[in-house]
């Protein structure tokens, strides 16, 4: 009834009445009280347990040093589901219903946390609070990247970003300073992300999905004709992004000048 999986133990209660399974588990744990100490476990439930039974399970597990991550599953052998009939809510007791509601999401979320090295998991039955956005890492003045940036990849830098290669649609660049692409810029580029309205975006081929400079956003326009190197910047009034042919890449101001 106890299986090891990549994220921890799986304790299988399904396939028989809760009491039987619980007694067997308790026997096993009492027979080898330290064997599983320090592990995490999820419980696969069959029959819906009462609040009392859950409580006893929890204390038995903690007595054996097993951290209980969550419970899931309703075994069809115990509560048989005819193949094409929807299951009604009424079959579950209150405590079980709250378990079932987000077992999948909670389980995955916890697995994800574990994978990211976060050992301690919050109680599994409550809604998970949203993660705060990861801060942009303070980095060198210029972030230099060689190679093509593929869709779904993103680079962020407090200073400038220089790419030697293409930036494909679906890729994202966020720079506090300027953005220079020695290649085709087809993704989303945000220069002056911390408010610098003098920031510029330069590319050999400027065909972005979207451009952002400071707080101004512009959708990429349809381009015709052979591409020439171009630069994007905030126009005089500051509410439009203008594009002009550029003979050479911009001189990247040092961060001291900028801030």
């Amino acid at each position: 009834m106890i299986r090891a999986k990549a994220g921890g133990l799986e304790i299988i209660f399904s396939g028989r009445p809760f009491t039987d399974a619980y007694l067997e588990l308790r026997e096993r744990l009492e027979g080898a009280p330290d064997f599983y100490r320090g592990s995490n476990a999820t419980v696969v439930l069959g029959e819906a347990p009462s609040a009392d039974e859950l409580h006893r399970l929890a204390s038995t597990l903690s007595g054996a040093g097993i951290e209980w991550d969550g419970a899931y599953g309703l075994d069809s052998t115990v509560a048989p589901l005819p193949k094409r009939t929807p299951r009604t809510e009424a079959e579950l007791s209150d405590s079980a219903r709250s378990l079932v509601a987000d077992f999948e999401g909670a389980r995955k979320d916890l697995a994800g946390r574990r994978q990211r090295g976060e050992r301690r998991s919050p109680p599994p039955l409550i809604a998970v609070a949203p993660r705060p956005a990861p801060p942009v890492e303070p980095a060198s003045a210029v972030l230099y990247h060689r190679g093509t940036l593929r869709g779904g990849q993103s680079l962020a830098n407090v200073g400038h970003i220089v790419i030697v290669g293409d930036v494909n649609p679906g890729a994202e660049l966020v720079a506090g300073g300027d953005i220079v692409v020695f290649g085709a810029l087809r993704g989303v580029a945000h220069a002056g992300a911390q408010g610098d309205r003098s920031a510029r975006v330069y590319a050999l081929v400027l065909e972005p999905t979207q451009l952002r400079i400071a707080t101004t956003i512009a959708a990429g326009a349809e381009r015709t004709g052979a591409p020439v190197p171009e630069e994007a910047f905030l126009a005089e009034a500051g509410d439009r992004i203008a594009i002009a042919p550029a003979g050479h890449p911009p001189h990247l101001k040092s961060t001291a000048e900028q801030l």
Partner: protein
Amino acid sequence: MTARRIVVTSGKGGVGKTTTTANLGAALAQRGKRVILVDADIGLRNLDLVLGVEKRIVFDLVEVVEGRCQLRQALVRDKRFGENLAILPAAQTREKTAVTELQFAEVVTGLGDMCDYVLIDSPAGIEHGFRNAIAGAAEALVVTTPEVSAIRDADRVIGKLQERGLPMRLIVNRVRPEMVRTGEMMSVDDVCDILSAELVGIVPDDPEVIDTTNRGVPLVLDPAQRLGAIYIKIARRLEGEMIPFTQLGAGGFFGRIFEALRAG
């Protein structure tokens, strides 16, 4: 909450979920319903592309969930449909595990207060992304093509929908009547029989549809596209109208479906 919340799913990838979501949403919007489309395919977002609004995305679903913007701020309106059609885009640089089922369901609930229909474009498969997509829904549309692998996957998905108690209806996509006639392709009849599902749409195969999705032009907007009319019919059936299915030359199923409609 006032809106109907419908997830469009399939199991098998590439059968037309996103195209269906976009075009059905456009059809409903054209008929005066307020529609919000939600792209649940985090990391592989395509709904914004198909709808042609990619360039106007500022915030996405993940940023809403992480509290970095309001729900309303993340909606991108399709100006071709006035106030009737908007999309909540997925994030492209994140993974599906960035959002839990509960969070997704909460977002959909929030959207439900703003419109008449929420259509959720599910990713392929039955993993985390799929589970998120169905978490917020009260009904499902299963899209399949008349091919064995698509049907097998649809069957698996239908089983999962049943487990959750979600009522579902079927759309059979990419039917080629000439191949059905020669027996080289399954008929819609066969598909419905195998899946024991109620049919709500039959969409013929049209290789030019890819061009419209590439260009981001919903079919109902292009009078040259006869498929637009079919999505309007599906929209009307969703609204409760009984519309007979156009005979696609496969003989037999027309009478059978009519039978089913008469039965209610």
